[in-house]
């Protein structure tokens, strides 16, 4: 292992894995007093199936993987749609019930309008959900953020573990063939609690 020179300022790449030291002693009974710290562990629970609620776990999970964390994602209730291959390319976004919905484009019509939330009734108009979904997908694509299926592939390649909630799976009468290929299994809530031991849990 090459020594880091004195006074060297270096980014935090996490703990270095020490190479086995051969100091001459052949004492195989050596037991380290402090166990080496494993990677930081994060678990996400995805419970919502709206398009805008799919992204938080995908983005944070991806960031966590890039920082060397172990990542587990449990998909439950409506969130199960995110790993359902028949559904996850057509998740939708609705204005209804979202009072934070405002459009930056409206500022061009009249300054200040971009900060006004959209009237709730608008969300109920036919075609409005499809329109809002299209718009959000476009905004995401403009920022080079992958769509949901591609994002799952990216996470899987980076080593994320996906789990489907057994209760929801049974309730929705799903079949395993519909789940994303990287899904580790259909597990119970208790299984997830076991798997996420020591993890920081984020519920979405």
């Amino acid at each position, binding site marked *: *292992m*090459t020594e*880091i*020179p004195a*006074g*060297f*300022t*270096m*980014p*935090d*790449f*996490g703990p*270095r*894995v020490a*190479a086995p030291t051969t100091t001459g002693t052949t004492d195989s009974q050596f037991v380290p007093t402090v166990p080496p710290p494993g*990677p930081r562990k994060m678990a996400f629970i995805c419970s919502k199936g709206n398009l805008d609620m799919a992204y938080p776990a995908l*983005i944070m999970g*991806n*960031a966590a*993987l*890039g*920082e*060397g964390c172990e990542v587990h994602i449990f998909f439950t209730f409506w969130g199960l749609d995110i790993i359902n291959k028949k559904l996850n390319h057509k998740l939708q976004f609705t204005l209804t019930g979202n009072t934070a919905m405002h459009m930056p484009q409206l500022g061009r019509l009249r300054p200040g309008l971009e900060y006004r939330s959209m009237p709730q009734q608008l969300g109920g108009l036919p075609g409005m959900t499809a329109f809002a979904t299209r718009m959000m997908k476009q905004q995401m694509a403009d*920022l*080079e*953020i*992958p769509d949901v299926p591609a*994002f799952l592939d*990216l996470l899987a*390649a*980076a*080593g994320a573990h996906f789990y489907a909630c057994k209760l929801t799976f049974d309730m929705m009468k799903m079949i395993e063939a519909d789940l994303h290929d990287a899904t580790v299994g259909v597990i119970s809530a208790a299984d997830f609690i076991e798997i996420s031991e020591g993890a920081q849990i984020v519920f979405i």
Partner: protein
Amino acid sequence: MPTNTVKGHTFEVNDEGFFINRDQWSEELAVELAALIDVELDEAHWAPIRFMRQDSARTGVTPTLRRLQTVGGFDVKELYRLYPGKPVKKMAWLAGLPKPVGCV
């Protein structure tokens, strides 16, 4: 701003340790830096680093892992294998570039 010296190479970094000036980078320096994070640079390791330098020379920003996949055509799984832990940060550092700021 701190200045780092390793085996006769001197370069300026920000408080976190990332390069400020990409012109203070050289392939020989990258080899020395790689040794500090226990990476031995072979052709597979060099390919993404070269891509990052070329890409950032064009765009002005350090490419993200997603860009390495979509534009560079690299396999994400392979990049995690080559640079375990924090792949994109390690590669950006070895390429003499600032820390990547993109979220995805």
